[in-house]
């Protein structure tokens, strides 16, 4: 893969305090981190904030990245766990867990900035999942992690992930049943 060695070098240079190297790592992975944050929050502004927080957290912990997993997997773990913590903080602070995502989306205009109706409906459905089920779907569907990898990311048993994915699928099928679907 173009850049695996290059990435190791960028990490080494970042560890020695080179901000340009870390900026290059951020640039390389920002799409993935922003996407995970957005799927988890349903809000453009909050996902920006979370993505930035994730990269700051990653930098602080960069010394502990041993290369046992891919750097992107390690980053994904940071952003998904930050999203879970953020969600808990938000729901405690505002007490509007259920309606929050819809409000956040309306701040971005009537279509929430989505390119089409299907994309908007899917995000609304994701927002209606319990947050741990949503995390399981984001990791297994959008980040293509196996149930075992997702379990390591979220620090729980593989069976728990399987259960959450199962429960999330049932709910998503109900919420999205009127959308046109086709055999892949």
């Amino acid at each position, binding site marked *: 893969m173009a850049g695996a060695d290059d990435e190791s070098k960028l990490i080494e240079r970042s560890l020695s305090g080179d901000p340009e190297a*870390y*900026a290059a790592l951020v640039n390389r992975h920002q799409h993935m981190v922003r996407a995970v944050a957005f799927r988890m929050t349903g809000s453009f502004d909050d996902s920006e904030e979370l993505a930035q927080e994730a990269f*700051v957290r990653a930098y602080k912990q960069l010394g502990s990245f041993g290369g046992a997993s891919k750097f992107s997997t390690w980053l994904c773990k940071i952003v998904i766990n930050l999203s879970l913590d953020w969600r808990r903080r938000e729901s405690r602070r505002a007490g509007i867990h259920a309606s929050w995502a819809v409000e956040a989306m309306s701040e971005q205009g009537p279509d929430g*900035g989505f*390119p089409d109706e299907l994309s908007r409906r*899917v995000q609304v459905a994701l927002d209606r999942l319990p947050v741990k089920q949503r995390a399981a779907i984001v990791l297994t569907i959008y980040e293509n992690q196996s149930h075992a990898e997702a379990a390591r990311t979220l620090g729980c048993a593989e069976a728990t992930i399987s*259960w959450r994915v199962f429960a999330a699928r049932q709910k998503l099928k109900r919420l999205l049943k009127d959308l046109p679907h086709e055999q892949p």
Partner: protein
Amino acid sequence: MNNLELESLLKRARLPEVPGESLEMFPRRVIAGLKRNVPLHPAAPSRFRFLAWAGGLAACLLMALAIGHWHGRREKETMPPDILASAKLVHEMLAMFPNRVRAIVEDAQGVNLVLSQDENVPPYALLYVRLCDGQHCSSFVTFSGQEIQVAGQKVTALADGQGGIIVTGNQFVWSSTEGIYAGNHLTIHAKTLGPAAM
């Protein structure tokens, strides 16, 4: 809609477009945030950090020992809380698989659902049982009469007509009302969770 169709639908969903300017500026914003919050040497070791880390580790070890000691004593006296003690959660799980849940088992591996192939599990009294061997605990929720594999043996929990519960395994028999326990070193707690809400 089957799982493949759902997955395809989810993957067709695109995200709102991020303005190019935001993408370009983002790495700079992160670096600016770092300069405000973190010295730009993330892995630089320092004596102070090492001492703080060692002190923290020692405090954690002491706390873990104290909690372990306290928990060990408490285990003998009361039933510690666990996920399956939540009747609401259990009923939600049961409602998702009507007449198919033989048991929900919680042990060191996590929570596992034991399902029947068909919808043929009779909704007799719903029972909660917790087995502890001094080091490990397993708990499960099941319907009266189901035989399930837990704590390394086949276990059956039965409700009698008077609200009592009998738990039998390969190596023990226990009764809530008779105070009978014939077997090895297990500590057993059981209670009725009421009729299954299907």
